[in-house]
């Protein structure tokens, strides 16, 4: 009798189909792009232009003191937008802290999406109304939430999926591991999207992991890993949509690595020249997600001045509206500090609330 005959050892999953391809999947500029229809590419284009403008505007708002901080996703608009568009309304999005753009592309009010970074509250939108989890900074901690929610939906018989986003740095956290493992064991309808943008603040990928690719991590959980050009909006969308459909249909989780690049500094407060060369940034600019789309549209003879202007105008409208509304002072009520700590305040909280109320009263009178 060999160990193979014994009950505990069974090669349970064939690893081969779980392994990612050696090169990131691309569509734009390849013959396969022929199957994409013009309208779809035009839509993507408009979204990306709008996304880029949003990043620029938000960064400008930090300079004007209207945002505490902004982690820009300039250069990553393709993945940000594709993630949101890959979902149906009843699906859930679990963004990482950099993914304000995904949240906005999903339909959340651009101002409400900035509440955390503006600093008037922690979350500005109703997560249940939008099926978008709160933007929050502890890295990778949102991943088990996504698994739990997806699992709960499945237990409830609801055919929905959750898409959870994380950065390359975040994959080093224990929560990443635990979430992927739970997802695979439970066959939860969840898709993990890692945006590998080359850096975790100043730390380059080579100091973050020695894996052949982040997508290769999937096989260790028994789920498929997919590698995609993160700047190719059509490719990211296709891969994510397929994974989300598969999850929704009971096929289990997928890990998708989108290879991209963070063009701006980590946040407005960061000085990226301390840890990387401009040459690297310039190399990536040549592979800009908007430029990739423009080239495809040009090839098709669809990129005329009107389309450009139309996209730019709509982006500008959004930016103007954002500017205007962000320059207005947010509604602030210090008593809110006590409003939602617990359903019922403790006696201690009631006492503290009274203290603050008295202080505010005194302030008003002085």
């Amino acid at each position, binding site marked *: 009798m060999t160990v193979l005959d014994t009950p505990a050892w069974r090669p349970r999953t064939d690893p081969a189909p779980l392994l990612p391809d050696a090169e990131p999947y691309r569509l734009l500029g390849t013959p396969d792009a022929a199957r994409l229809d013009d309208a779809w590419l035009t839509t993507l284009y408009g979204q990306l232009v709008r996304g880029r403008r949003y990043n620029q505007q938000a960064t400008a708002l930090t300079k004007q003191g209207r945002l505490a901080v902004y982690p820009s996703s300039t250069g990553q608009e393709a993945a940000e937008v594709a993630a949101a568009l890959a979902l149906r309304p009843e699906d859930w999005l679990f963004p990482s802290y950099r993914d304000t753009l995904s949240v906005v592309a999903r339909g959340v009010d651009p101002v409400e999406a900035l509440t955390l970074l503006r600093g008037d509250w922690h979350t500005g939108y109703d997560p249940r109304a939008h099926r978008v989890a709160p933007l929050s900074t502890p890295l990778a901690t949102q991943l088990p939430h996504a698994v*739990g929610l997806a699992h709960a939906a499945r*237990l409830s018989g609801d055919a929905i999926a959750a898409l959870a986003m994380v950065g390359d740095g975040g994959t080093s956290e224990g*929560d990443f591991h635990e*979430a992927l493992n739970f997802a695979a064991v439970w066959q939860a309808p969840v898709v993990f999207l890692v945006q590998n943008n080359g850096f975790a603040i100043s730390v380059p990928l080579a100091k973050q992991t020695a894996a052949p690719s982040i997508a290769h991590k999937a096989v260790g959980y028994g789920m498929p890993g997919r590698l995609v050009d993160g700047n190719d909006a059509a490719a990211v969308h296709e891969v994510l949509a397929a994974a989300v459909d598969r999850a929704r249909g009971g096929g289990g989780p997928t890990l998708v690595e989108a290879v991209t690049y963070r063009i701006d500094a980590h946040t407005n407060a960061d000085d990226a020249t301390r840890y990387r060369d401009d040459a690297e940034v310039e190399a990536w600019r040549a592979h800009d997600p908007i430029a990739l789309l423009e080239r495809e549209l040009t090839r098709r003879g669809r990129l005329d001045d009107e389309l450009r202007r139309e996209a730019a105008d709509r982006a500008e409208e959004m930016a103007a509206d954002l500017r205007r509304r962000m320059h207005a002072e947010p509604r602030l009520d210090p008593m809110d500090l006590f409003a939602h*700590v617990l359903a019922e305040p*403790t006696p201690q909280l009631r006492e503290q609330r009274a203290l603050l109320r008295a202080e505010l009263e005194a302030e008003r009178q002085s």
Partner: protein
Amino acid sequence: MTTATTTAGPARAATAKPVTMAQALNRALRDALAADPAVHVLGEDVGTLGGVFRVTDGLAKEFGDQRCTDTPLAEAGILGAAVGMAMYGLRPVVEMQFDAFAYPAFEQLVSHVARMRNRTRGALPLPITIRIPYGGGIGGVEHHSDSSEAYYMHTPGLHVLTPATVEDAYGMLRAAIASDDPVVFLEPKRLYWSKAAWPTGEPEPVPPIGRAVVRRPGRTATLVTYGPSLPVCLEAAEAAKEEGWDLGVVDLRSLVPFDEETVAAAVRGTGRAVVVHESSGFAGAGAEIAARITERCFHHLEAPVLRVAGFDIPYPPPMLERHHLPGVDRILDAVGRLQWEEG
């Protein structure tokens, strides 16, 4: 009132059947699962095995393994998944296998569980119950006897409950699961096998969260305690009679919210108090309790509120734990020092 057999509780009617605290907790879970399909139990070994303390015994069989689920071995993952489940409208009841094995979930607890309601202005309340067997006195090897209540008490956004009697174990766990807020539910390991007569018929109604109870009135001084130290305090109060002391005993039950009224009323009546718990004293629960009593009762106090707590040392190995745990003598010595301060 039902008290553990280690305490001097009133005898029950002959029809009542003796039940352990573990069984009462099991019944609470079963009743909660039956009453509300949103309730889901999850944790390590809670399914087929029924938990290492058998608190989830039979639940997977009765309600299926989707209602009572064996998870992979990862506490942050368990609690993190529970957050997501609660976001979707379920009421997860999570078991951490032992106190020290809840620490891997600390970030999820502090950074998310405790803050989600507040973060979202009430849009995402998290009705999660986190059951943690805690405390020593069971001969557990290192990492199996921690008392971690102070960490949780200091974390705004959580309720922290700990029953000391069989009856409370049932009622308080039902209340915890019924709460729309996260509750850290600390189960005193060494009382799991304490027994009490179980009321015939339906268990008593769910008590409100946040009410302390006077287990024993007294005139000389007040012992303020909770969880595993309640039986010890009741024993000390019995023994104190020999010294001519009439000691009152308050069982806090709920560490958050903290029932200042009940505690202050009891202490005002005696002018002297000793806070007793087994976790390390430094920056422990007793510090808050003593400071708060002093703030509220200063002019009624004849002596400073003293604390009898575990030493400020890592929890000792089984063969030495009795020297660490507050016992009757150490409590009475402290009471003696209160008397002395009077002079």
